[in-house]
């Protein structure tokens, strides 16, 4: 059974992983640990889902062709 400190440490490592803030060695070490611990797998997948949900559901207003043309016209003047 993991204690609270281990849980927090896992969360920190997972967060750093998805922030691309780990070295290649640390990434590999984390993925190894994830595969060996069901709690870690769950935590990893939850964080992955949360990140993907936010990234794919944030509103992204479209860029009109007029805006692009205005930009081109401005610097070509």
């Amino acid at each position, binding site marked *: 059974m993991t204690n609270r400190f281990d849980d*927090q440490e896992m*969360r920190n490592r997972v*967060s750093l992983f998805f*922030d*691309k*803030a780990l070295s290649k060695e640390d990434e590999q070490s984390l993925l190894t640990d994830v595969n060996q611990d069901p709690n870690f797998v769950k935590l990893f*997948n*939850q964080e992955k*889902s*949360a*990140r993907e*949900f*936010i*990234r*794919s*559901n*944030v*509103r*992204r*207003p*479209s*860029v*009109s062709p007029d*805006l*692009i043309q*205005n*930009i081109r016209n*401005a*610097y070509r003047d």
Partner: protein
Amino acid sequence: MILSRPAKTTNDEVFESELLPHIDALKTFAFHLSYDEDDANDLVQETYMKAHRFIDKYEQGTNAKAWLFKILKNAYINEYRKKKKRPTRVDFEDIVSYHDSDDSRVPGYLDLREEIFASMMGDEVTIAINSLPIDFRTVVLLCDVEGFTYEEISKIIDVPIGTVRSRLFRARNMLKEKLKRYATNLGYEDKRGRAKKSSEEE
């Protein structure tokens, strides 16, 4: 008489091939800073005007996206806070006091079950992000939406990497708390604590 079109300059080629392709990402960032599509268009246009004016400062093949985001961030601070007559320019250093890791009001980490996401519509994410204070919103947009690293974010918003990390920690917890509230309003109930308590009592 045949008039020949002037050959494209190298700067124009760089502008078209390296800078303009980031316009969608810039528009998204500008929109979530200004909350207004027209203002976002103005910000994006101003960003590219400045980028073209200072294109000699840009090193071809380097991080165009980060460079443009920094220009846009500065344009936002300079123009839109003045325009909206915000009481004071937020001093980034003041935000350090927000990031007290011993703050007992905020849990260390907020969990959000995968199944909650499945039933949410996308608007909740936009509403939740846009309700964050500007400095928290910025780091979430730069890291979680646009995928910048801590170092890139640090350079874009001119704060130390440690501050980027602590803001992200706080911002994500705030975001998850807001999304958890939406989930509760949809009828989801967090029964995990109840189940754990009853097993401890046995």
